């Protein structure tokens, strides 16, 4: 049994949905991709650009994000922002998360007794 492999697989699964929640949460203000990567990293959440960029695009196609090119600067940048639907989704998923994580933490603290 390869412990490391199983652990990294499980952690990946745990992170996947949580990252979406965080991305939605951080995009209440318009940001461009790399900006968000750095911001999340500052808070100890490591996310690769190659995960985040396609993810934001997917969320946009789902109607949760909207984007706009800013060509005023030297480099053209694509800014993403939460839509109204996205806000509703964020609110609901956040509620679920709070409820879920509280219960999970409580159970984990009890040590499985």
């Amino acid at each position, binding site marked *: 049994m390869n412990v490391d492999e199983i652990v990294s697989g499980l952690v990946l699964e745990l992170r996947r949905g949580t990252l979406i929640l965080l991305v939605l949460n951080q995009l209440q203000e318009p940001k461009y991709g*790399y900006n968000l990567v750095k911001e999340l990293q500052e808070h100890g959440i490591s996310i*690769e650009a*190659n995960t985040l*960029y*396609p993810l934001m695009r997917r969320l946009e196609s789902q109607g949760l994000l909207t984007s706009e090119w800013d060509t005023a600067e030297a480099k053209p940048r*694509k800014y993403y922002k939460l839509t109204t639907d996205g806000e509703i989704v964020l609110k609901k998923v956040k509620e679920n998360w709070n409820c879920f994580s509280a219960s999970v933490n409580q159970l984990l603290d009890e040590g499985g007794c």
Partner: protein
Amino acid sequence: MKNDLVERYIYAVTKKLPYKTREDVAQELETLIEDMLKERCGDITPTEKDVKVVLTELGTPTELYEQYAGDGKKCLIGPNYYHTYLFVLKLVLICEAVGLTIAQIVSAVVNGQELIWYMAIWQWFGMLLSGSISAFGFVTALFAFFEYKEISLDTNSGFEDLPPVPKKEERISKGETIFGIAISVIFLVVFLICPEIFTCGVIDGKMIPIFSTEVIKSTWYILFVFSALGITRDVVKLVDGKYTKRVMLTTLVTDILSAVCTVWWLTNKNIMNPEFTSSVSSLFEGDGAFIANVFANFQYFFMGVILFALLLDCVITVIKWAKYSVGK
């Protein structure tokens, strides 16, 4: 600052993406790579090695493309249907094999004298192979269609949308649908390979088939459609597991189409075996004229039975749907 390697990299990632997004993704990646290089090198001009490091961090073009392409429509039959698909596939293949074997044995018994055993086995094996391939193709196409439909229907997947658990009497029993599928497959196989199985006893020491073997073999496509409709109906029942609107509508449509097939097939004047008709009328001369008449019109009698069964199925399904699903 255009870099050849970066350009090639971006082209490799975006070339297979949909046309609409290609340009946009390319632009975005270009800025991203510039940002990453700037972070790595500051104001110093990045070397080829720096570019390679940054690109390695982003992953191979194929990996990045996969991320952009997403895992949406990457499979013909997704996890929602996969288990049912496997189940139905096994069922259909088993029934097809059983039906073929029965049909082959019966036809061996009927044409006993002229048969060479190894030819019969070889023939059986050939039919098993082509039958299995057709069955596999049909079931796969059916489920691929379901998968396709489901994707276009199911865009929001909130937790609130989950349907309630059906009560026991609302459920369609799995046994019922399995039986239905099995009957459809066996019916098709037997009728196609060995219509002689519908032999009306022995008249004057000879087994005389009711239906004309040639006509049945030449109208195989009607039988195939008839069975395919039956299987589709049962698979939808199996997938939904209760009398949903979808089950109701599928049942109505497939029943009506089946009725059309039945009428089309059985109003063919040549479908009866002329030898059978004449033997029957000679057998029941005089007092038995009525019975002879019944047998002579067996095709219409047969048609009536099938149409009645289809009508009954429609009525029962609509009633059950109205009882269990309407207003919920």
